[in-house]
């Protein structure tokens, strides 16, 4: 059995890669995919702790996370499509009128 710390470190690395992806990329779709990475990283951590304490709660929680991710992706992609209808680009830097 691999020690718990390994899984946690894996989760941390994946999460920070996801954060970097959100902050650095300009393509809206890729940003979204980075968000998915983050959610998955959290899932790993949940499952790992769950196994360590012999509970089921973590798995149920992970199930809910997946559920929410699905809902979020569908709505988010619908938004991106609406955005694309207004301005034929998904470059986030071009949507810069959210200021004074």
């Amino acid at each position, binding site marked *: 059995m691999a020690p718990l710390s390994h899984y946690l470190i894996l989760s941390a690395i994946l999460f920070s890669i996801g*954060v970097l992806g959100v*902050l650095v990329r300009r393509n809206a779709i890729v940003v979204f995919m980075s968000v998915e990475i983050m959610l998955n990283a959290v899932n790993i951590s949940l499952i790992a702790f769950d196994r360590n304490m012999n509970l089921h709660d973590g798995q149920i929680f992970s199930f809910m996370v997946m559920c929410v991710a699905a809902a979020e992706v569908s709505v988010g992609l619908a938004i991106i499509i609406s955005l694309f209808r207004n301005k034929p680009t998904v470059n*986030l*830097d071009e949507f*810069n009128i*959210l*200021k*004074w």
Partner: protein
Amino acid sequence: MLLKLTWLIPLYPLIGSIINGFFGLKLGKRLVGLIAAGSVALSFITTLLVFLGFLLLPEDQHVFEQVLFTWMSAGDFNVDFGFQIDPLSLTMMSFVTGVGFLIHVYSIGYMHEEYSFYRFFAYLNLFMFAMLLLVMGNNFLIMFIGWEGVGCCSYFLIGYYFEKKSACDAGTKAFIVNRVGDFAFLLAVMYIFNIFGTIDYTEVFHAAPEKLIYGGEAVTIITLLLFIGATGKSAQIPLYTWLPDAMEGPTPVSALIHAATMVTAGVFMVVRSSALFNLAPGTMMVVAFIGAGTAIFAATIGMTQYDIKRVLAYSTCSQIGYMFLACGVGAYTAAIFHMVTHAFFKACLFLGSGSVIHGVHGEQDMRKMGGLKKYMPVTYGTFLISTLAIAGIPPLSGFFSKDEVLYHSLTDGNIILWGMGISAALLTGFYMFRLVFMTFHGESRVDPHVHPHESPKIMTMPLVILAGLAVGGGLLGIPLIHGWHILHNWLEPVLHFDLASALQHSEHMLHEAGKHAPSWDHLLLPKEHNVGLELFLMLFSVIIAVTGISAAYIFYVRKPELPGRLTEGQWGYEIVKNKYMVDELYDETIVKPTIEGSKFLWKSADAQGIDGAVNGVAKTIGWFSEKARVFQSGFVRNYALFIVIGFIGLMIIAF
């Protein structure tokens, strides 16, 4: 019972003023004049009734107080609104309302062609109201209301011809110079309250010997401050500069305010506070010297002026100086006596000059008058009588009052004071008769197309009445025979001061404080009435007065070119003619720095400093906002970055 009518006395002029002020334009000139003069007449009659009621009081009661309501009650500070009827206030009330009534009647004729006839009478009645409050009040605060009120009405009336800039300036000057005095007066009243816990006359004057040390610093400061207030109101050195300029107002105003009533308010206040002044010998000396000094000073300036009203204004300054001289040596009765007689003859003189000015259609310069006695006989007659009175020729009233002042200044004061007084008497005779000779005698220097004429009856009748009073007023104070001095006996209950017990109290207080009391025995020596000295002095002052008159006769009737020759090119004469440049001095040292200071405060302190601070706050906020604006770039990624930064920051802080 009759005394209960007291509160009506100031009420009548107030109602008259309100009616005239609001409805005067619609009521027409006849009705306005009737209301104004009538209200003062009612006040006069009521005063006589109150006088009668006072005489009917039992022997030992010398004062009657009528309290209308409690005006202020704040903690320890309690002030009533009430009137005090005692011999002193009755004297003042009688001649204020009496002379006031005559002047009102005169004004109906004098101001007849004015459009704002009603405004004049509204202000004049308001002035009467304020003056009556001043003399009738039963505490210092009511006196102060009247004090301020007469100053305010003086400003209104001096600036009556407000289209002329010189009149407006004169009114402002009067008000501001008065204000300086009022400030000192107010400080004195506050100090009195601080020591006595009350400002009611009866309580303060009864407690004065017990609370104040004779010659101590508290009483000296209080009385000095009171006296400064009096110099402002009564036009003494150093606050006299407003009175000559106040002649810009109509002549009845000069007669009423600046001869008979307002300028005497200062003297009244000093006499009323005699209990306090008697305890401060230092201040008394100051009062006497300033009074005598002003008497000479103003007389010298009066000798060189050519405007008929200005000569009379300086004469007023000079005569009031006599009254303060009398107060300063402790002869309060003499001061009041001179005040009453002065009211009569000075009012007559001013009204007479008004009649002259009316007769030559507005000309005020004496160099353009002369030989008017054949055109205006009545005016000339009354004017001559009053001038003889002011010069001090027996048996007119002015002789008795002035002589009493001089006698007391020698016996109770010292020879320097007497010397100053007698010199002023010499000058008075000289310049007053100079006035008469230049105006009424000699060849006519009047403009050819001005036809001088006598004034109508409504103006000459008050002149006659006042001249009669100037003649007979001397009966109030017959000298030499001790029991016959009516005024002295009348005012005795008010001015009575027990010096011995006051000194005993002071010694007691000083011993309690651990200090040594100086020897005051020389003050308690009895004073005898030296009949021989008084007779000699009377004779001497008559000789002096006649000398002055003859000098004026030589200079202005016999040899009219002599004055011009003697004074040509003399720098002393030029200085005196320009009023010793006092106005210019005040302007340079006080007025200009104040204006410069105000300008500085306006431009630098207010516009730059305060506005800058307030604007500066707004500007700083704006500057910060501009710097912070950069964060709102509109880029979503930057916003996400800030979220992450914040989160990491939180983690660092929390862990």
